[in-house]
């Protein structure tokens, strides 16, 4: 049980800055997910927390204590690697008990702790097996078990599910969430998969190019993205963007020019003036087919998923996506009209920053545990 604090962390690899000053506060028992495209520095950041890389500058504090110069084993952390990194010549039991063996914990106590962890992860039957006799999911569980027996103050997960097939990934995702409830520990999780981020996190840290773009709860990132990058990165399919011009702006909202008439978006329009160019962002699932709609587009591709249908539209020189319900009868090459609720739209300035919404989304600050669905 611990808190983690990063103060202005910088990492320099031979002249290239890969982490450019990251500040972060992780509360006790929080599940924090680092997410971002590959090369954004999320794994490097985690490896610095783990102690496998040193920070070029900045402070890493666990429970308020600076641990920059403490070795990886003495930070009280445990890490689960993407490739599992099991010791191939040791049995499952020896793999899980290795840290205790090094710490000279008596055999009986060691076995007891390994068994306790194995029970949580349903590994009791497999304790005598070697890693190569295990399936991917089982290996993953052993790697987690190896972390659990160390009883760490913070768990670190480095893309732990990316080597699993899709079905197993969903299952392990739920198991990890359950594990977080059960162990009630602070967890930091790196992934490039936003579904993992959205479903498991109390707090998501969106990274790009070594910079934190936004920190917030999954719903806050979804409903109130701080900038163009987060708006485009969070949410699947991707948000649609359209260049628009301001007709009128005041504290109550901003009117923008659209082909089918002006539209008032309820955002704070204090910092902008008439004639400014903005980017209008609207999520595919917030667009709806509407014969009187202000917007039009030609269907390029239709993806029917059963429950929903994704329509890929040609709109001017850009491509839009519209998520409609499952029994849409439209066909490719059809010209369709659609509309959206301005309250769901986002307006982004030329520098990428979003204009803040006047009303906070009711779910934006919900605690993940309040969802209730994952309690054991």
């Amino acid at each position: 049980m611990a808190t983690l604090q990063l103060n202005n962390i910088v990492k320099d690899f031979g002249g290239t800055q890969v982490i450019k000053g990251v500040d972060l506060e992780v509360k006790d028992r929080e599940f924090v997910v680092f997410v971002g495209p590959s090369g954004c520095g999320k794994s490097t950041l985690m490896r610095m927390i783990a102690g496998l890389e040193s920070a070029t500058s900045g402070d890493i504090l666990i429970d308020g204590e600076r641990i920059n110069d403490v070795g990886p084993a003495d930070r009280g952390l445990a890490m689960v690697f993407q490739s599992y990194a099991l010791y191939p010549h040791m049995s499952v039991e020896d793999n899980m008990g290795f840290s205790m063996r090094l710490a000279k914990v008596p055999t009986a106590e060691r076995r007891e702790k390994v068994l306790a962890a194995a029970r949580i992860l349903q590994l009791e039957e497999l304790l005598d097996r070697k890693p190569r006799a295990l399936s991917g999911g089982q290996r993953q569980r052993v790697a987690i078990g190896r972390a659990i027996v160390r009883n760490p103050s913070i768990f670190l997960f480095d893309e732990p599910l990316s080597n699993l097939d899709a079905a197993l990934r969903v299952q392990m995702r739920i198991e990890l969430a359950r594990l977080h409830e059960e162990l009630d520990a602070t967890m930091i999780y790196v992934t490039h998969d936003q579904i993992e981020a959205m479903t498991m996190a109390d707090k998501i840290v969106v990274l790009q190019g070594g910079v934190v773009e936004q920190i917030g709860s999954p719903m806050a990132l979804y409903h109130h993205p701080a900038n163009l990058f987060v708006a485009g990165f969070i949410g699947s399919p991707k948000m649609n963007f359209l260049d628009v011009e301001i007709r009128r702006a005041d504290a109550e909202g901003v009117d923008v020019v659209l082909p089918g008439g002006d539209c008032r978006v309820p955002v704070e329009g204090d910092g902008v003036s008439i004639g400014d160019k903005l980017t209008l962002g609207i999520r595919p699932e917030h667009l709806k087919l509407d014969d009187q709609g202000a917007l039009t587009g030609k269907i390029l591709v239709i993806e029917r998923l059963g429950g929903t249908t994704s329509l890929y539209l040609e709109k001017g020189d850009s491509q839009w996506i519209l998520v409609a319900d499952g029994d849409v009868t439209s066909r490719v090459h059809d010209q369709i009209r659609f509309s959206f609720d301005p309250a769901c739209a986002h307006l982004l300035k030329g520098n990428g920053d979003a204009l803040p919404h006047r009303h906070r989304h009711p779910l934006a600050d919900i605690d993940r545990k309040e969802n209730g669905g994952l309690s054991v």
Partner: protein
Amino acid sequence: MALMTGKTSAQRQGFELAMMSPALFLLALITLVPFFSIIWMSFNDVSLMGGLAFEFSGLDNWQRVFTDPDIRSSWLISLVYFLATVGLEMVIGTVMALLVYSLTRGSNIIISLLLIPMFIAPVIVGLLGRFMLDPSHGLYAWLLNESGLFDGNILGSVGSAMVAVILMDVWEWTPLVALIVLAGLASVPEDTLEAAEMDGAKYGQKLLYIILPSISNILLVALLIRAMDAIRFFAIIFITTNGGPADSTKIIPIRLYDIAFRFFDLGYAAAVGITMLVFSIMVATAFTKLLKRQETSS
């Protein structure tokens, strides 16, 4: 159905055998014929005087092989030689590989430099050794003499001659072991080592629990290669001491050479040669068994 495919595959095998027969014939000519001639020779008294002459002598040669005290002492010297060279090469080679592997830069140049001894012909290594250890002008002999460590004729004294030829072999072949181990080290996954580090393993513990078990297979291969070589080792000793002084470095291959080409007792030499072959096969079989066991257990 199964019968039919069995038949066609048997037919095809006949065809394949026919196609391979020229190569098989050549192989028989250069290996099998000499092999069986050697076995036949070991049951004969072979003389070269006035043309090659075989005189059947039954088990005489074989009885000598197992009773000759010279042969027994040569086997013992061979064993000491074998254990010392292979043991030292494995240990030093592994340490060398670990050191090179821990270098962050310049390891390529270091490896190239380390490998130089391997590319020198053993005869040259022997000549070099003889030159360096010469009591009147050898550099090493002078150094040892000046430092007071040894002041006799190194290659001319019992004991020191043995140490000298062992070290020459170690000097030449340790790099090969280092090279093989280095290749093995590159295959130890980095994140497994990092996981061990997170688990609290110091370098020594990582070496003992992770690195060495991970490369145990490749260590066995290196050991096998060196062991097979050490059994038939010949050139360096032939050049430096030729088995002397007082037969103290007369390992089995040198003894065999003496019997065959100094005393021209070819029948007896054949018997000694076959025992060497059997010993090699036994060692190789033991190693392959070990390797197989390793593979199934890991």
